[in-house]
């Protein structure tokens, strides 16, 4: 018998890699199925969306673990924000279309910002996924500069966030929030935003209501 205790972090991360690979190949198969049967109903689209979401949750799990171990270092690289939003909207387009929701993006084409594409992508995907559950007809991704920050927002025309959540803006206790795992998602988002740092300023997230739709407005502030 080995006297060494198992290194849980290696165990965890390699299982997550493994599952994530499986999911990736599953999505890939669905993708092929879709191209072979272009007239199929929306089931494949939904399956794909679900699988993608599971993949995202896994990514989140791994990132949260690393965060806890203080091993998470975002790769803050300069990106064209319009490119990023375009890609996100293309990615979610099929799922939105299947639900008869229009997804758009608005952004100055010259806007550039520093962020970890994978991590922020994960946050935006989760936000869009949530919006998909509430939106009536519209989801808008947008970005703008605001003082020292670049602000990424996901807005929808649903019923918006519950009042108490809006009033609190406290995401530090993921396990205390009731019901679904929104709490965990918000905790993750706020932690990821916070590890984006520039010259002593950290990022954060903000929940609000959408000016244009009156629905939910989820914003990430990146320094």
């Amino acid at each position, binding site marked *: 018998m080995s006297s060494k205790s198992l290194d849980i972090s290696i165990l965890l991360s390699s299982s997550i890699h493994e599952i994530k690979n499986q999911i990736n190949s599953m999505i890939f198969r669905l*993708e092929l199925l879709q191209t072979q049967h272009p007239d199929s109903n929306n089931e494949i689209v939904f399956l794909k969306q679900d699988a993608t979401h599971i993949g995202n949750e896994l990514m989140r799990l791994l990132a949260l673990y690393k965060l806890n171990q203080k091993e998470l*270092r975002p*790769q803050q690289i300069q*990106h064209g924000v319009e490119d990023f939003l375009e890609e996100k909207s293309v990615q979610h387009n099929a799922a939105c279309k299947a639900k008869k929701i229009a997804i758009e993006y608005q952004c100055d084409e010259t806007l*550039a910002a520093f962020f970890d594409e*994978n991590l922020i992508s994960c946050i935006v995907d989760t936000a869009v996924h949530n919006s998909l559950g509430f939106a009536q007809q519209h989801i808008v991704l947008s970005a703008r500069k605001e003082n020292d920050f670049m602000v990424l927002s996901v807005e929808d025309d649903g019923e918006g966030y519950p009042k108490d959540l809006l009033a609190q803006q406290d995401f530090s206790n993921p396990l205390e929030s009731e019901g679904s795992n929104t709490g965990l998602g918000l905790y993750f988002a706020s932690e990821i935003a916070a590890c984006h740092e520039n010259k002593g300023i950290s990022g954060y997230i903000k929940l609000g209501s959408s000016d244009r739709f009156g629905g939910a407005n989820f914003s990430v502030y990146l320094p």
Partner: protein
Amino acid sequence: MMKRTIDYHKKKFIIIEDHAEFRSSLKQMMKLFGANNVETATSGDQGISKIIAGNFDIVLCDYELGKGKDGQQVLEETRHSGLLKASSIFVLITAATTVEMVMGALEYEPDGYITKPITHENLKSRLDRIVRDKQAFQEIDKAIDSRKPDLAVEACDKIIAVESKFQIKAYRFKSKLLLKLERYQEAEQLFNDVLEIRYIPWAKLGVGKCAFYDNRHDEAKAIFEELAKEDKRNVEAHDWLAKVYASEQKFELAQKSLLQAVKQSPKSVLRQNELGRVSAITEDWEAGEKAYRKAVSLGKDSCFKSSGNYTGLTKALQNKIKNFKGRPGRDACTEAIRTLEALEKDYGNQKDIALHSTILRGETSANQDKQKEAERYIKKSLKIIEEYGEDLPNHLGIAMAECLEANHQDKEAEEYRKKYDSSLINFDTLNAEGVKYFKAGKFRDAVATFRKATQDPNPSISAILNATQACIKLLETEGPNKLLVKDCTFYFKKLEDIAANDSNFARYKKLHTLYKKYELK
């Protein structure tokens, strides 16, 4: 602004992917947007040989390629040896969970990443983006492809001048060019400019590199140490720390840093080689053996393959051969012989290496107490050494001394010890010293110092060029001198294989033209 559509049907692709199903599906998917000219390769090695033959516009390469080379290594080889034009696009396909392993402070970066899962929506939009971004850099790439690094620097400046998403990338590009052109002061200014905009680890690392080149070692060390502490996965910080320590002859510390670097990133041939070299100096044979063994196996089919790893491994094994009786000793012996056989097979036609191998065979026999056999090899070696006359490279003289010592021929060994200097192990320092002499106008001293510096079994191109330049300068100032011309001829022979897209190529050409004048006389 309307974005121009990209004519994918005009582009030549290669997909490097070990997973059969994924490979063919990816190809199918690409057909959907007009990419018809798509070749495939099932491994990194196959990919590289196809790239050499192919002239591709776009390479799509999976990071994880099962056994053998990974995608990052394929990228390094193709870019390092100029197998792919600068204007060609290299895309790395990664799983989101491995991306951070790949990205960051790496010398060679792909033109873009595509993260799995790949769907036809994101494949097309991501490729579009990568191709368009590459277009923004086409002036730079063209200048590099036509071997005009100075023009490439100017092209970078144009991008830097305008605020855009390309600004930082252009800075980074420019910094790499400046370092290659040895324009360290400008490079340092650039790194500081970037740090003004934002704290970015590579810019800070750059300041450290420039401090090192400017002989501000303490400052350099402090920077590298801070970076390594900040993120232990910053491999380059460890590498550079090792480099500074080695140049200060603090080999134990250098080894420690390299061990850290290897822990984070074990697949680099050059790093394993350096670890082997440093471990041999500190006589940590166990570590040396491990590092050289790794370097030999990683170097197979690689452009970084080098004879020094084979001789290094054999040398490191001697301790076991001599001191470990029974199984471990015998195994070490078998491995040493096998390694030398491989060395002779691949490099046997090179005189220096053939001699080195014979000497090491002698030492191996001597350490097994097979005196007769050892004497045979020693005799053979001495005969070859005679042919060299006074021109025996330093490292071979020392190898001979060690072999004779192993065979208890202390007196003969002593002769070699007197003549050849085992302190000539730090070639970087010698090179830097030569530069100092040259700058001070002491060309004679510079020539002598560079001559020692190029005794390095694997001298850098710029070190050889320095040596050549010093010789030519001395020819110019003191008139014709057969010995100096002979030196130059020797150096140019070493430079024969210089790649046309090497950043030193322009300098090489210039010196070669100057040399022609003297050669004819």
